[in-house]
């Protein structure tokens, strides 16, 4: 029942948003987020107690890996919902809205549609993270694209339209290729003598059949299937060189949407790849899939480093940082062994930190009306809370102690060394060093100095805009100082599914 409600509550809330009349839709959004968070916690506890919950005729059957990403999506949805209340209130007050790039007048999309799409977006991510059926996972990821496209186009101007179209086309075609990967996987496991009867739990069925594929010609189909899954879901995950939509969409979407795209949606696409990797490992083809993940991981890190250096647009800077961190995750899961736990911890810490940074970026944008890091000065004085969070978020995202990402990146490095990957470790460290320097220049330039004189003085930071990023920041800080036993156990169980 809990599981079914987890999917149905955001779905129903999304439909309810369309009920006409003036009623507190923002309140419903926050209530939905809180209910979703409670149900996610219950699901996490059930999975932690090895209860193997199922719902909707076996369609929903979360495991430790999926439930970690479910919790992250739920936490970020709650943070984004609270932030959205303040954000939408501010948007309502603005009578004249101008595009920052061209200065053209624009309007916002109807709030009803925005809130409804946000709920559908979360429902789709819930399906992705709780299902063991690869087809349903694909359908869920496709729905996330369709539900989030209107969110990116909330501010109706040319730049956001351009970003939305690129996102729609690139991700839709990419996900279509992932569907091809699903079909090729079915071909690999096709046995005319024993017709398929895997039911809803396709993942377990495929892993069971994977042993039969070893050493046969069908292994070639399985390899082809994984390549298409990697390219397809990798497009959505933002792995270079398939990441071209990501900086545009993240920079043009409202900040809480950017936070959810970066912190929750990219994880969902990663989950699609990890499901393929699980099957490849079961077929003793883990070296092949792992090698590809390592290659794309390093390539993404290097690409991100190139674009981060000299990046003047602070939301694009955060977007390229997401490409970097998706690269780190792909690398960790590709290396395997001890790096797997580091990878899981990294996914948790990155999601929390990146969402927090995007929310703070939203505060800065509201105050300064510019996306250029050159035009923002003196955040420490002008916006004491957001300025402090911006600096703390920067330190966290580049992997400085005492934040959780330091721990996860260090664990991944240990895993790489344990795997005798000296060359990989060198590229990893070099990319991290370049990114550290590349990010520190614009971020510190924004935090220090004196505020520009043309910025209006009548500004105060509202609770809605500061509380969600502050809570997320506190969580990342705590994870750097102490990882609770229950979380360690859950992450270990998730890592074990990937072969730790």
């Amino acid at each position, binding site marked *: 029942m809990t599981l079914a409600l987890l999917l149905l509550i955001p779905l129903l809330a999304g439909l309810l948003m369309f009920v006409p009349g003036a009623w507190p839709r923002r309140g419903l959004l926050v209530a939905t987020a809180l209910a979703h968070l409670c149900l996610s916690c219950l699901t996490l506890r059930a999975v932690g107690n090895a209860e193997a919950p199922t719902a909707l005729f076996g369609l929903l059957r979360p495991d430790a890996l999926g439930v970690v990403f479910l919790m992250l999506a739920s936490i970020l949805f709650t943070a984004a919902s609270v932030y959205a209340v303040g954000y939408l209130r501010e948007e309502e007050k603005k009578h004249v809205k101008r595009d920052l790039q061209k200065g053209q007048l624009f309007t916002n999309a109807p709030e009803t549609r925005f809130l409804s799409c946000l709920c559908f977006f979360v429902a789709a991510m819930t399906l992705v993270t709780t299902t063991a059926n690869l087809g349903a996972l694909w359908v869920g990821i496709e729905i996330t694209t369709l539900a989030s496209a209107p969110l990116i186009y909330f501010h109706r101007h*040319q730049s956001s339209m351009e*970003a939305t179209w690129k996102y729609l086309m690139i991700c839709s075609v990419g996900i279509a290729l992932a569907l091809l990967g699903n079909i090729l996987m079915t071909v690999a496991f*096709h046995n005319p003598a024993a017709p398929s009867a895997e039911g809803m739990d396709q993942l377990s069925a495929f892993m069971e059949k994977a042993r039969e594929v070893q050493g046969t010609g069908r292994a070639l189909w399985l390899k082809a299937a994984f390549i298409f899954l990697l390219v397809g879901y990798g497009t959505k995950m933002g792995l270079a060189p398939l990441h071209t939509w990501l900086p545009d969409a993240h920079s043009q979407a409202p900040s809480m949407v950017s936070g959810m795209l970066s912190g929750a949606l990219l994880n969902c696409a990663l989950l699609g790849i990890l499901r393929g990797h699980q099957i490849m490992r079961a077929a003793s083809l883990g070296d092949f899939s792992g090698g590809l993940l390592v290659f794309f991981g390093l390539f993404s890190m290097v690409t991100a480093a190139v674009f981060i250096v000299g990046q003047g647009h602070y939301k694009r800077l955060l977007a390229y940082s997401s490409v970097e961190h998706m690269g780190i995750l792909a690398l960790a899961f590709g290396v395997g062994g001890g790096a797997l736990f580091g990878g899981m911890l990294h996914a948790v810490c990155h999601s929390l930190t990146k969402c927090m940074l995007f929310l703070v970026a939203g505060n800065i944008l509201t105050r300064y009306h510019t996306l250029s890091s050159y035009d923002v000065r003196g955040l420490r004085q002008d916006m004491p809370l957001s300025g402090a969070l911006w600096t703390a978020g920067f330190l966290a995202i580049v992997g400085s102690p005492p934040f959780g990402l330091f721990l996860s990146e260090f664990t991944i490095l240990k895993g790489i060394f344990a795997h005798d990957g000296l060359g990989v470790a060198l590229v990893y460290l070099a990319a991290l060093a370049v990114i550290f320097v590349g990010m520190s220049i614009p971020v510190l330039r924004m935090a220090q100095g004196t505020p520009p004189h043309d910025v209006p003085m009548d500004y105060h930071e509202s609770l809605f805009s500061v509380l969600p990023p502050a809570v997320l920041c506190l969580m990342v800080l705590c994870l750097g100082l102490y990882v609770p036993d229950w979380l360690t156990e859950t992450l270990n169980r998730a890592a074990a599914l990937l072969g730790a």
Partner: protein
Amino acid sequence: MYSLFQFVILLLLVTDLIMLWSGRILMLIRLSALQGALLAALLLLPVDGALNAELVLLSIAVFCLKGVGFPVFLRHVCHKLGLEPVVRPRLGRMYPMAGGLVCLAFSLWLEGRIPAAEGLFPPMLFPVALTTLFCGLILVVGRAKALAQVIGYLVVENGIFLLGIPLMTEGSVWFELSILLDVFAAIFVMAIAINHINSAFDSIDVARFRNLRD
């Protein structure tokens, strides 16, 4: 039945190549409708002769959506926005056509290299499905009009659908229907987006997208 199946597959291949050559938006829409109808027909011509009620239902759904629904909807968008009938290919006509033929040759070569499960794919299905997918990608990349890119996406999806036909068992039809529903939603959202592109840019030419660069 078998030769009819082959004939329909070859017709699909011909539509792929004409699409790469065609420079008119209405022609592209008509050809995508024809592809939808051909895919629906293929579902009624199972090579092992086992036709069941679920396959018939799926065939009807494919015909209604891909053969009639999408083309009528796209044509409506085209008329509503008063679009120019000619689609200017970014890469001209020769390069996409040559690309399509190279993809066909590659797919034929690949079919001989990968050992498929015995009797799973009827002859020519695998290379034509792969060529259809590649042709769709060429349309997405090679056309500047947003509507032509949507048709390219549909062609990509048609290629994948064709590849999945031999794997359709009774239990998998619900999944195929949910994919169809997803594609329907995708086309719907893309059409709305095209409407907004036209309002924002006074054109649906995506070559004008130059605002977002590093």
